[in-house]
């Protein structure tokens, strides 16, 4: 079987589930360790940039991609009668499990899929979620936040955190002006960009005086993009990072109150 993936997230699932010989090509993104933790698995596999002309000569039996990317390429591949599986962005941990199963079945390794899901479930049930009453907020560059119904929202609950943005009916990821952040004052602010990364308006907002004055000793979590850009078992790592932050805050609060 010859499989090609033209989307970062299907790359990750493919690398974790298929035999190496089955994989003919993955995107250049997954080969970058700053973007994906599965980069070591992709070493030695040909890279593509999501272009039809790269895919067709490989004569794949299966092409994997996401529903949100490379639309014109997918339309062309379908016209050429190539079997394409498109995975939508996951909105829950159940979606993640379902997508693992879809890819595992498609590449003929259903048992591996079952094992990967079992391993993910085991890690989740081993999480020692003890803290209660802490609130978090995922603040996205240029004024967005993760609301109810997003994967990030479920990840916060899995780490025992209340999503402070939940009350604003933001859908999955909605517009969230800075003044709401000042008002909501979460205990933990989750960011996916670094304060000291190259300049952008998004970063400038993180240094807004209103924020510095609001959160005197507040906990910031810089979430590595590898942990949750995709709905793969790596999301459990993201949940562990959130849990660590929650424990740090709880411990600090415990120390100051005694």
């Amino acid at each position, binding site marked *: 079987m010859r499989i090609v993936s033209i989307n970062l997230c299907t790359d990750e699932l493919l690398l974790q589930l298929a035999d190496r010989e089955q994989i003919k090509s993955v995107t250049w993104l997954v080969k970058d360790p700053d973007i994906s933790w599965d980069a070591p698995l992709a070493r030695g596999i040909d890279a593509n940039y999501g272009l039809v002309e790269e895919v067709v000569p490989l004569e794949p039996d299966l092409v994997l991609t996401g529903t949100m990317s490379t639309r014109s390429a997918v339309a062309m591949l379908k016209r050429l009668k190539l079997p394409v599986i498109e995975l939508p962005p996951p909105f829950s941990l159940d979606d993640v499990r379902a997508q693992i199963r879809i890819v595992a079945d498609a590449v003929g390794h259903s048992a591996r899929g079952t094992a990967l899901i079992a391993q993910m479930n085991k890690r989740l049930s081993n999480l020692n979620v003890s803290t209660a009453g802490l609130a978090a907020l995922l603040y996205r560059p240029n004024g967005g936040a993760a609301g109810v119904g997003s994967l990030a929202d479920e990840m916060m609950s899995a780490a025992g955190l209340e999503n402070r943005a939940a009350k604003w009916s933001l859908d999955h990821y909605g517009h969230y002006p800075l003044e709401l952040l000042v008002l909501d004052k979460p205990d933990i602010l989750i960011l996916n960009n670094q304060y000291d990364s190259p300049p*952008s308006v998004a970063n400038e907002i993180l240094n807004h005086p209103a924020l510095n004055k609001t959160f005197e000793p507040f906990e910031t979590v810089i979430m590595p993009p590898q942990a949750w850009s995709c709905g793969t078992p790596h999301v459990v790592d993201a949940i562990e990072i959130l849990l660590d932050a929650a424990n740090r805050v709880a411990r600090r609060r415990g120390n100051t109150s005694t």
Partner: protein
Amino acid sequence: MTTQTRPALLVGVLVVLIIIFFAISLVVGRAPLNVADAISSVLAGEVNVGSLVLLELRLPRAILGFIVGASLGLSGAAMQGMLRNPLAEPGIVGVSGCAALGAVIAFYSGLSAVFPLALPIGGIAGAFVAVLLLYVMAGSRASTLTLILAGVAINAFAGALTALALNLSSNPYAVFEIVFWQMGSLADRSLDHVTLSLPLMLVGWGLLLASARGLEALTLGEETAASLGINLATTRGLVIVGTAFAVGGSVAVSGVIGFVGLVVPHLLRPFVGHHPGKLLYLSMLGGGVLVLAADAAVRLIPTGAELKLGVLTATIGAPFFLLLVHRMRRDIT
């Protein structure tokens, strides 16, 4: 008599409108905030959520709304006076676009992180190059066709280089921020942006208002103006450098907000007749009213993400522009 009293009345009306929209700008926002409580907290020197939202987020937004609008309205009126062409406007002819390019280079290269003034200076440098280029290309009595075509070229070039500069940035979000630079927004700006840009805009306002007498004389023709003792080179210099400071300073903190400098002088011109000098200070106040009102509107219009300010001014301004072109058709061809 009437031409003396009507502008005075108009100034009064505009000032009242500025006060009303400034107050609305402080009240309007997503956070449910009791403004009266927030004001008393600020006065009592307390730091709480209310005082922070009011002082650090809504106040800078309202101040920027006024000063950015005033800069754009004033520059539009001055450019129309200098080029003696009613279609001259910083956004349409590419001055704002070049200012954005200058600011983008200063900002994303990291220069403004170590030297904050680099941001407005970048904007001013970009705007200066554009006005100068425009003046060289279109001349002192700009034919509409030359002016607009030069503007199209300058705008396209500045837009392309801005996109290039953002693509070259190693920050993954930079590329999405082209929307901010080309469509303009005052969301989540801070008092730092006010202190950074206001002094430079004030310089621009001073220079532009000083050109009033020269622009008045220029309506009589260049020779008559010269015989009246007006130094035309000085007048043009004041407008070019003044526009660079006013537009460069505002675009550097707000992005490009188009058509303000077109719509405002046109709406106010009937009240002052052919007096480009008087039109300057009226357009300054009128620009402040328009941008303050538009910025309150983008916060009230229930779109998912907040509408960019330039989107709103363009939806008002572009049809207005087309109407003007339609009216001037014979003159152009």
